[in-house]
């Protein structure tokens, strides 16, 4: 069983009251291998070979009220399985979880009224009808009284600037427009917990930015607890203070964005813009791993030595501009995914998510 043991830093808006508690949560699927070829297919009708795939391997997690947690991981890491378990869509093989004090897979109405799930790759609005019709249905299902419904709908619609889309059939909307309306529908009943499964997948930069602003605003205003799964570091950087990195059904890292840099990198990236392309031998003599791109030199320097060595570098190279940055988060996380994959014990790749 792989447990998360890293220290955790809560978002500043967290209140210390646990809303989500997960202990040793595991999900296994039995999958049937489909043999290749006609003869093997016929044989397989009578003697199917199956194997057990571990989508989640005993995950532990605690999320407090008001936290905005990002869950990052490669395809098949178990992120969506985790959200499906917390939403009560599927039942676990082992382990326990409570969300807002309820066991999700008991699927009580009281619990289901208090959270929402938005899946970027699934459409939950009525396809052939305008979103306004889906909202009306939502009002009935969640028993939202009319004044509250109208107030919330108008507020959300104005924040996302989608009023003109309300009466257009959903099938005629762009992906970005549809996702905005999916979010409005999900938030109409003012859920205390929101699960977002890759909400920005396939969206252009403008739509992504618009969703980031909206989600940040609504989360802060309502003190909503949010878990977001994503592949995009932009989502994480724009929205979350806490990051959970998952690979092969296990949590590799659970902590703050700042800590991940400190914990997993020992150097900073120093970029020098020079007057002219440098002499490679002179750059080599500096003694740091480097990359030369025309007049630009990129050095990887131990973070503890930056203050000592930088003045010397700046004096000797005809430097026009300099920047000192942390290693990009994408690079750190990609490295974690790679090392996590090689560290895997029994190869549960391709797990259903």
């Amino acid at each position, binding site marked *: 069983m792989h447990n998360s043991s890293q220290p955790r830093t809560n978002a500043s808006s967290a209140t210390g009251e646990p809303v989500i508690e997960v202990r040793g949560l595991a999900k296994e699927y039995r999958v049937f291998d489909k043999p290749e070829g006609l003869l093997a297919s016929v044989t397989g009708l009578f003697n199917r070979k199956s194997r057990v795939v571990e989508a989640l391997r005993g995950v532990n997690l605690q999320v407090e009220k008001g936290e905005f947690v990002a869950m990052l991981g490669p395809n098949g890491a178990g992120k*969506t399985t985790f959200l*499906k378990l917390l939403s*009560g869509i*599927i039942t676990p093989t082992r382990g326990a979880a409570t969300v807002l004090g309820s066991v999700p897979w008991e699927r009580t*109405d009281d619990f289901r009224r208090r959270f929402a799930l938005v899946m970027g790759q*699934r459409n939950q609005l009525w396809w*052939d009808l305008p979103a306004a*019709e889906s909202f009306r*249905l939502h009002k*009935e299902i969640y028993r939202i009284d009319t004044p509250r419904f109208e107030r919330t709908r108008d507020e959300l619609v104005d924040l996302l600037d989608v009023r003109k889309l309300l009466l257009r059939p959903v099938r005629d909307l762009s992906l970005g427009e549809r996702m905005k309306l999916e979010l409005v529908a999900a938030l109409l009943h003012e859920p205390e917990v929101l699960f977002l499964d890759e909400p920005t997948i396939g969206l252009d930069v403008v739509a992504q930015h618009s969703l980031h602003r909206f989600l940040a605003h609504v989360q802060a205003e309502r003190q909503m607890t949010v878990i977001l799964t994503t592949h995009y570091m932009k989502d994480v950087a724009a929205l979350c203070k806490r990051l959970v990195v998952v690979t092969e059904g296990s949590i590799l890292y659970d902590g703050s964005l700042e800590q991940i840099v400190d914990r997993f990198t020992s150097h900073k990236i120093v970029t020098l813009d020079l007057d002219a392309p440098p002499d490679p031998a002179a750059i080599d003599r500096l003694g740091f791993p480097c990359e030369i791109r025309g007049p630009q030199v990129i050095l990887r320097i131990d973070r503890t030595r930056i203050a000592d060595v930088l003045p010397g570098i700046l004096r000797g190279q005809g430097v026009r501009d300099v920047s000192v940055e942390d290693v990009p988060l994408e690079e750190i996380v990609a490295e974690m995914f790679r090392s996590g994959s090689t560290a895997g014990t029994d190869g549960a790749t391709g797990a259903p998510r």
Partner: protein
Amino acid sequence: MTRYVSILLTFARACLVRDMTFRANFVLECVTSLGWMAMNLAFYLLVFTFTPEIGLGTGWTKAPFFAFVATGMIINSIVQALFMPSAEELTEMVRTGGLDGILVQPLDAQFLVSMHRIDFSAFANGLVGVGLLAWAIPRLPQPPHPVAILLYPLLVVCGVAILYSLVIMLAAATIHLGRNQSLYDFWFYLTNFSRYPAEIYSGPWGGPLRALCTFVIPILLVVNVPARVIAQPLTGQAGMMVAGTVFAAAAALVISRWVFQSALSKYRSASS
């Protein structure tokens, strides 16, 4: 309960709005369905040019038999309109993971799965059935007993409940299988048995088939009992049949509920 009625009305409204969006499709569905019914009725009329009765001494002469056919049309149209579209869609929802969206809503999942799509064009057959029944009743050899008139709607509801239970159990099989595109075909084969008077199932093959379709899969009770009550004289046997049908309907609902809930607990959801 009122909440569920209100939600059903909201579904109905949304489905009607959608049907009106695709008006040509709606009209075409009504015409196709009515055309199929007209062919069936023509076939039965043809049969009655050769014989005065379906099975000698059974009482299924022309007017009672058309009351039987009308009852079948009414019951089937209710099931086809209210439950079949949603059940058929479940197959696709399981395959694509669309069922996830239903399971997170604070409503009974079976209600949502069964009734979120309503096919208004299927009511066309029911209206024809009501018309046919209105034509047949004054032509019956004897007018229906007042008790029979009271029992008839109850027995129609029981027939709908039995068929609904079969639909939902077939749909639940989808959750286990992951894909079940033969749902509608299987439904058609099963309901075919209910479309004719039980008396035709006799002899060395017919007898066991009748017993199977009465006591195991009570498909023969669905149309036969309400039709017999309205179209034929009430006898001592009728009381047994009515009680049996009510019991079968209740048992079918309980069993189908158990089957559906047990299937849901095994739901794997599709990969995204």
